[in-house]
Structures are given as structure tokens and as C-alpha cells.
């Protein structure tokens, strides 16, 4: 027999009203506007777009407010929203070589075409809290420097000229890129599907795994060949037009990680690569993604799989923070019936255990008496 227990509707409604109140906070403090979040918490917005896997700044800002700044909750909201929209298609692949670059650094070449462009970076700041920001003072306009528009080839192309680095990752000619939003995960998976999963993966999880490879768990001697951040144009093929229609631009961060490789029976000694590409400005995430991409290619290079970061099923199955939070957080929902069943079981086991102990004691006493 199953008896449904109902109740809690009023408590839930009141809890949500309380949530709305606490979200708004002190009414004498002005309410946040979405454009303030888009402009002034831009990297938080970028993280929500990257892990929510949906490029739309205003929606990400709305999600951040609605989630009271809880980033994983905001990412969850964005993921839920995207399921409500029809799909128009797949864009043409973006060309990061044609990026309007806002930052570009290489740790492998000092002098490279286009140069080292620091852009709006936290690097070389002293990480001292700035009381002037709290006071809300005016901020000076940034300096400008007249310069010729230079082409900025990817660093991997420079090494490729000498033949000392593996080429960009190719797939068989007839390979259609997999899409984890349409098909369930299957292991082992092709590199294109893995990259899709990593690009929307949790920054903290990928950062920890990337860090673990540096500390010796799947050591692979990385250099940042290049990190670049900037806008690239999107184009979509549609049946009603004879050319690919331009949609506008997205800001992305790309990381080319260069790794030492001593060679194998199949490949000569050369540099191998890990690749990171994420929405928005997030070089920590792009670098972590590139480290994980390279570690997950272990079997491709005949390396021993000895560490967590090399274990495809482990990494990809646990990289999605929406899935992770769903499964962890469901534990707090009512499990009254499950628990009653377990309680019953433990009581019965305990009774049997106690009965056995009593029987053993009687047996011992009897033996001692004899």
C-alpha cells in the first residue's frame, strides 16, 4: 500500500516570498540594475555564460540577481532557460586568428608577431584592497596608442613551421561534431565532445584537476603557448540566404597549452598540445581546460593512465556543476519513506545482532561452568 502525504504548500509559498524579500534586502539601498551587473561584474557574468553554456549578457546578469549572487544557482537558471528556446542551427566555426584582440600573451616567445598585449589583466597588481573603490571615485579614461592593425597569428602556427609541434586536432573527414545537448554521454568519447563538455565544465573542478597535473598527477610539462581574449564574429548558414548570415560577435578566451612529448613508436619527439576555448573573459578556466584536454589525451600518446585528470569518465562525468549540484542537493529533499525502510532494516539487523551476542554469551557461560 502507498499512501501519499501532502502538505507544505503554504510553507513553500511563504518561503519563496521570504526569499524574494531577502533577495531585495534593505529597501533603503537602491536595487541593482542589470546593466550595472553587466558592466561592473562582467567576469561573473562571463562565468555564468560559460558554464550556463549560453551567450547572453543580460540573461546572465538577471540570473545572478535572481540567484542572489550564487553562481551555480545562476548557471542552473540559465541552463533551464535555454531549454525553452527553439534552435536555429550551428554557426560556422569561429576564427580565433581573426579576433579583435583585447589581450594576448605568450610565455614561450618574447617577440612574436603582434606582440604581447597585456589588456585589462589582474596580473602584476599587488592584490591590495583599494579603499578608493569603496568611496566610488571617478576613474580615468585608459590611454590609447596609435598603432597599425597587425595580424596576430596563433603561436601554434609559429612552432608548426618548424614541424616541432603536432598539428591542430583533426577528425576524420566525414566526422560530424558531437553535441552533448542532443545525445547522452558515451565513453570513450571523441575529443570534440570532450572539449564541449570541458568548455561548460565547472571552473573550480577543472582548475583543481589542472593543478593536480602540475603537482605530479599526470605530469605533462606545460607552457602557455598563448592566451588570447577578444571578440570573434559569428556566421550562420540559413536556407533563405545564399551566403552565411553575420550574427554579431562573441567574446571568447582561447588557450594554447604546449606540452613536451618525448615521442613514441608512432610519433617523433615533438610538442603536443592542450586546447581551451570558453565564452567570455576567463583565462583561468581556459588554461585549466587546456591542461585537462591534454591530460585526457593520455591514451592517444601511449601514456600510462595513473591519475584522476587522465580518467575521461571520471573527469567528464563530474565536470558539470548543474548535474553535480542536482544530485548532491537532492539529498536534502524528503526521503521519509526511504529512511523508514532503512530504519526498519537497521532495527531488524540490530535485533538479530543482539540475539546472536546473547546466545554467544550464554554459550560461553555454559562452557565456563562446565
Amino acid at each position: 500500500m502507498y499512501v501519499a502525504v501532502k502538505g507544505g504548500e503554504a510553507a513553500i509559498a511563504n518561503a519563496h516570498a521570504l526569499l524574494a524579500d531577502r533577495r531585495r534586502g534593505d529597501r533603503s539601498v537602491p536595487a541593482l540594475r542589470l546593466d550595472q551587473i553587466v558592466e561592473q561584474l562582467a567576469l561573473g557574468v562571463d562565468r555564468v555564460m560559460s558554464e550556463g553554456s549560453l551567450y547572453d549578457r543580460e540573461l546572465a546578469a538577471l540570473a545572478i540577481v535572481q540567484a542572489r549572487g550564487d553562481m551555480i544557482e545562476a548557471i542552473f537558471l540559465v541552463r533551464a532557460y535555454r531549454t525553452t528556446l527553439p534552435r536555429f542551427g550551428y554557426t560556422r566555426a569561429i576564427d580565433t586568428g581573426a579576433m579583435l584582440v583585447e589581450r594576448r600573451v605568450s610565455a614561450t616567445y618574447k617577440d612574436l608577431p603582434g606582440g604581447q598585449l597585456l589588456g585589462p589583466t589582474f596580473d602584476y597588481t599587488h592584490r591590495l584592497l583599494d579603499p578608493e573603490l569603496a568611496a566610488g571615485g571617478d576613474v580615468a579614461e585608459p590611454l590609447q596608442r596609435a598603432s597599425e592593425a597587425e595580424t596576430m597569428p596563433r603561436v601554434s602556427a609559429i612552432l608548426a613551421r618548424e614541424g616541432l609541434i603536432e598539428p591542430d586536432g583533426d577528425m576524420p573527414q566525414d566526422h560530424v561534431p558531437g553535441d552533448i545537448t542532443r545525445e547522452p554521454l558515451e565513453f570513450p568519447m571523441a575529443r570534440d565532445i570532450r572539449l564541449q563538455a570541458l568548455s561548460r565544465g565547472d571552473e573550480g573542478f577543472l582548475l583543481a584537476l589542472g593543478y593536480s597535473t602540475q603537482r605530479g598527477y599526470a605530469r605533462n610539462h606545460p607552457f602557455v603557448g598563448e592566451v588570447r581574449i577578444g571578440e570573434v564574429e559569428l556566421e550562420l548558414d540559413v536556407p533563405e540566404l545564399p551566403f552565411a548570415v553575420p550574427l554579431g560577435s562573441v567574446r571568447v578566451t582561447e588557450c594554447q597549452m604546449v606540452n613536451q612529448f618525448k615521442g613514441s613508436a608512432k610519433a617523433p619527439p615533438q610538442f603536443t598540445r592542450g586546447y581551451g576555448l570558453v565564452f567570455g573573459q576567463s583565462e583561468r578556466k581556459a588554461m585549466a581546460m587546456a591542461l585537462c584536454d591534454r591530460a585526457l589525451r593520455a591514451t592517444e600518446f601511449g601514456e600510462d593512465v595513473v591519475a584522476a585528470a587522465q580518467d575521461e569518465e571520471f573527469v567528464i562525468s563530474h565536470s558539470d556543476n548543474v548535474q553535480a549540484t542536482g544530485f548532491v542537493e537532492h539529498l536534502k529533499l524528503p526521503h521519509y519513506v526511504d529512511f523508514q525502510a532503512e530504519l526498519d532494516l537497521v532495527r531488524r539487523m540490530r535485533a538479530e545482532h543482539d540475539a546472536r551476542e546473547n546466545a554467544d554469551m550464554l554459550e560461553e557461560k555454559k562452557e565456563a561452568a562446565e
Partner: protein
Amino acid sequence: MRGQEARDQAERKAVMATLAQSTGDDIARLWNEAGLPSEAELLRGPETGLVTVRGRIGGGGAPFNVGEATVTRATVRLASGQVGHCYAMGRDKQKAKLAAIADALWQDPTRRNEVETKLIAPLQAALAIARERRRAETAATKVDFFTMVRGED
């Protein structure tokens, strides 16, 4: 494809790119200043949907799916028969509708010049200024390496 047809397509694509890159506010402001007609039959939309953005492994290798982006599209027909389309990132439906009308007007030989000079040219100029400014601000953060001779000889 004949040369003229290819040139027309390239020009039309450039017009659509300018409209897609510009804000709905800028388009609406110039539209009103120019007094362009906004009457058109809506054949589709404006409606918001998703495109899946593709990148390439290693930057230039096989394509893979990076994530999705919101796009709003509209299709209109003018009384004179031209059909115009718009696909633009974001969720601005008014912008999509105006941009689709602009695409249709641009295809009308009697209207093209007006659309080019009063709408597209000023939008392009504003985009070029913003782009150049961004490039110059980034260029100011370029590292100029120099070497220092230390010690004697």
C-alpha cells in the same frame, strides 16, 4: 556566379553585419531621423532562438560545439515585394524587425542609396570608431622589451 551578383551579395552581407553589430537604440534613432518607412508585412517572427557556436580544435582543426547563444530573427515583405531578413545576436525583437525592413529596403534600387547613406554609413562609422578605440586602448598595454647592459665592457 556572375561578378555583379557576387558583389551584390557581398554588399548585402556587409549591410546585415553592420545591422547585427549595432544596438537596437542606434538603429531606431537613425531610422527616425532618416524618416525611413517602418511598414512591412511580417512573414516570420520576430522570434528568439538559439544557435550553437562552433570553435575548432587547436584553433584551426576539426570543429566542436562550444556553447549556445541567443539570436533573434525576423522576415518581412515590403508592399513593393522585396523580402528582407535579419538574424542578430541577443533578444531585441524591435531591432530584428527594423533590421529586416532595412535589408528589404536595401534591395529596392530606389531606396538603396537612402538606406546606405542615412542608416548604414553612420552605423558603420560608429562601429569603426568603437573598434579603433578598443584597438588603441589594447595597443597602449603592449610590452616594449628593451635590454640593459650591466657591468663594465
